[in-house]
């Protein structure tokens, strides 16, 4: 039996399910980052840069406070799974960014 199988045997299903709450965290952080970028009127690269900063900041907080510096104990993908926002959240960021930018800066 390979070591991946052995590692997989040690994983407890309900805990993995509880930890998948990080998906909502990533979604909300993308939403608020989009709102912030829109309200501030950031354009082009500045906006995407804010998204990057927001992703790293929220991942950093979860890393230090929740995972206590050891993401491999809480997530199967380790650090990458913690940081990666995923395609859905990137589009959510763009949607919120466009929406708030339009409301605040384009309309009277």
């Amino acid at each position: 039996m390979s070591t991946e199988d052995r590692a997989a045997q040690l994983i407890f299903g309900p805990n993995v399910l509880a930890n998948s709450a990080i998906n909502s965290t990533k979604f909300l952080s993308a939403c608020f980052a989009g709102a912030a970028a829109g309200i501030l009127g950031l354009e082009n690269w500045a906006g995407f840069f804010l998204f990057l900063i927001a992703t790293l900041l929220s991942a950093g907080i979860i890393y230090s406070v929740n995972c206590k510096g050891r993401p491999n104990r809480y997530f199967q993908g380790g650090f990458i799974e913690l940081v990666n926002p995923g395609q859905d959240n990137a589009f959510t960021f763009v949607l919120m960014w466009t929406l708030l930018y339009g409301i605040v800066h384009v309309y009277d």
Partner: protein
Amino acid sequence: MASNAVSLYLDPQIRDWVLFPITLVMILVGILRHYVVILLQSQPKKLQRGAIREQRALARSNILRATSAYSPIPPPFYTSISTHLSEAFTAGTYLKDGPPKGDGPTSPPNPLSDPGAMDGMMAGMKTQMVMMVPQMVIMGWINFFFQGFVLIKLPFPLTLGFKSMLQRGIETPDMDVRWVSSLSWYFLNFFGLNGLYRLLLGDGNDASSQTMNASPFGGANASANPNPVQDFNKLFKAEKDHLEFSEATYIWVGKDVEDRVLRKYGKLAPLQ
């Protein structure tokens, strides 16, 4: 470009009557799609006790074998379960129709004529239709009612190639690609609301657009095996061989655990 310096002034009523309604409609239609798919799904056929017993016996054997190389079950339990299952499979005690009578080989029922497989294929097609139809309807609605005016300015630039798609209906060759029509707002919403659906409806919802990408494969797989029509006698025979093989490779996870613990804490000489 001159249009960069000059900013277009847009009527706030466009925001109230186009921007918010399109988003709201798309959210609601997504949620509606999800619940429609749930309501349209036919009930899975209830199996009889004998049939369930067959499947459960096979499942039990699979579970036992899956962890046999590093098994959490101590040897007496493992060997007793394994022996019991092997004997049951050989004698056919778990078979739905009782032990085989010894007559000629039975043929499994034809999957095409079995109504169960038909239900599976229909379910896949129904889901696809429910996905496609609202998208077409909303696109048509937007093109009919909200055509011919600039809706919003994108905060990021795009290449000129997008101009024809995003500014459809606005015939200005010089305007910046960032001023877009309502159809592009539809596309933004289409991609951007997946995250919201996952928050509202939970993972694996039927409203997100990722199911549209997966549907050719998912639909085919779902229709291929909803009701496996299998000859359990043959399966049991094969499973018995697998059980023997696994018993040969079985190692208890707690084997020699005393030596391992002592070695870990340095009370015993380490292995060379």
